[in-house]
């Protein structure tokens, strides 16, 4: 198949238009955070930095940001531990039920969030008799974050193979020494990439969070959702939305630089 120059240009043009359409809504949120109109009129009647300074001094938004950061960090650490253990088990061993375990890791993110949400809500309140709190959100987030760490670490383990580990064992190193000196250095960057993605995933999540967060302990997405329809809060919500875009995109860009297979970054 030989594409004519015209056809190539046509495909390039279509690609450009699609990318433009993908970015316009995000740009709009950024522009609106400076829009003097509270109803997001277009074109903006004027520009102002007032919403930004109001958002910075908004206690609710600041508390929500702090809650989100705490949940994200703890969930990421738990997911890093569990995801790495699973990746080591599934990439270095053949055993009965391996496919089942693989499915189990993917399930929390493959099933619609609302089902995971009501299931965990019921388990925490009905079975464990726990009050919904920052602890229950963190447990929920850890559960669906495992898969991002797992994907990244497992992809790296597949890529580097097990030869160096076998050589290390042949030379007399014990399992722990081999892990510390051979396996871990090889998977370190993939693990960090997975953790960055896991933090971004936790930071953005709203559906499962709605069902597992305690009253008065909003994460940042929950705060946005609860304040979106309050007319006097709407412009501040827009500023927080821009902050959310930035906080979720920066870890992704960092993760990109650490992981060679860029598409493996997708959940």
């Amino acid at each position, binding site marked *: 198949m030989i594409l004519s120059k015209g056809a190539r240009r046509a495909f390039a043009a279509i690609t450009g238009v699609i990318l433009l359409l*993908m970015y316009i809504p995000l740009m709009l949120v950024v522009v609106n955070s400076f829009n003097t109109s509270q109803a997001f009129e277009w074109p903006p009647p004027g520009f102002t930095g007032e919403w930004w300074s109001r958002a910075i001094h908004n206690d609710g938004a600041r508390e929500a940001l702090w809650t989100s950061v705490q949940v994200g960090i703890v969930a990421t650490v738990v997911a890093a531990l569990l995801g790495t253990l699973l990746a080591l088990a599934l990439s270095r061993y053949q055993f009965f039920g391996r496919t089942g375990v693989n499915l189990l890791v993917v399930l929390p993110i493959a099933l*619609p969030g609302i089902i995971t949400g009501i299931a965990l809500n019921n388990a925490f309140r009905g079975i464990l008799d726990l009050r919904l709190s920052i602890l229950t959100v963190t*447990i929920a987030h850890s*559960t669906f974050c495992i898969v991002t760490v797992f994907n990244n670490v497992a992809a790296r383990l597949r890529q580097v193979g097990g030869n160096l580990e076998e050589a290390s064992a042949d030379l007399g190193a014990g399992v722990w020494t081999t892990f510390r000196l051979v396996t871990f250095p090889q998977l370190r960057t993939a693990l960090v990439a997975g953790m960055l993605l896991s933090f971004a995933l936790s930071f953005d999540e*709203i559906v499962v969070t709605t069902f597992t967060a305690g009253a008065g302990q909003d994460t940042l997405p929950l705060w946005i959702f609860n304040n979106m329809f309050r007319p006097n809060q709407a412009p501040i919500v827009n500023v927080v939305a821009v902050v*959310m875009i930035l906080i979720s995109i920066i870890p992704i860009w960092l993760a990109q630089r650490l992981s060679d297979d860029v598409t493996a970054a997708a959940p």
Partner: protein
Amino acid sequence: MMSIVNETREAPTAPSAPSPSPARRLSSVLDRKPKLRLGMLLSLPLLWLGLVYVVAILAVLLTAFWSVDNMTGELHRSFTFDNVHAVLTEQLYRSVTLRTLGIAIAVTAIDVVIALPIAFYMGKIAAPRTRRWLVIAVLTPLWASYLVKAFAWLSLLSGKGLLSQVLGWTPGYGVTAVILTQAYIWLPFVILPIYTGFERVPNSLLEASADLGGKTGRTLRSVVLPMMVPAIVAGSLFSFSLTLGDYITVRLVGGTKQMLGTLIYTDVGAANNLPLAAAVAIIPIVIMGIYLVVAKRTGALDRL
């Protein structure tokens, strides 16, 4: 390099220790027993996923067969088919299921149609350096917050928003708005697997087709498309499943329209009827189950 330096530092301790430390004994036991090693790797994650997740999912599905006392709001743990029966027979559930399915199909169709040309350009035309940049350009909006993207469309579609000012038209809030917003949100999820699919189509096949006289259209239809089916199905899995379970977008831009997600949400929250919510939740699980079985036949699951 690193390992050599570290090995020499380790070496003196090993032979000189007369009675090995417990840690070292454990290490040597682990060396000889791969099954024990595997067990230790798996026990913690499986305990977590089993206790937190599997138990929770099974419990909520079981709840679908319980009932709630209308007066006290307490759960009755005796077996009943009432909820499932209600979900299967009542008009409300049937029409909401059909609407949700229709939206999911429309979103998937739009996304596949948009994803094919851009993925083709990324995978088969663009130079490797451009390709890397394009992948990042597609991935960035994928990771931008889902809620923020829905929120962007809330203002985009509003009466005085960008769309009505530029095009002079806006669909307003309703089913069309939900389809547009969802198609926007899930588009990057559909582009990536299709792009990977195009990348895997060997150029030699395209050249062979050209050498044998196949025109571009014929080559795309008879050579590329059949090879692309698994990748397209893999991409559609995302948009389809994510739309089926959505309830945020429909609450933001759906006006008064309900989807399965909003029904589940109100059954749990306002109505405090978890059994009914669980029964409704079975619908998307069954639909996705069927979709996955069909997808597995095309080999799409290996492409995720």
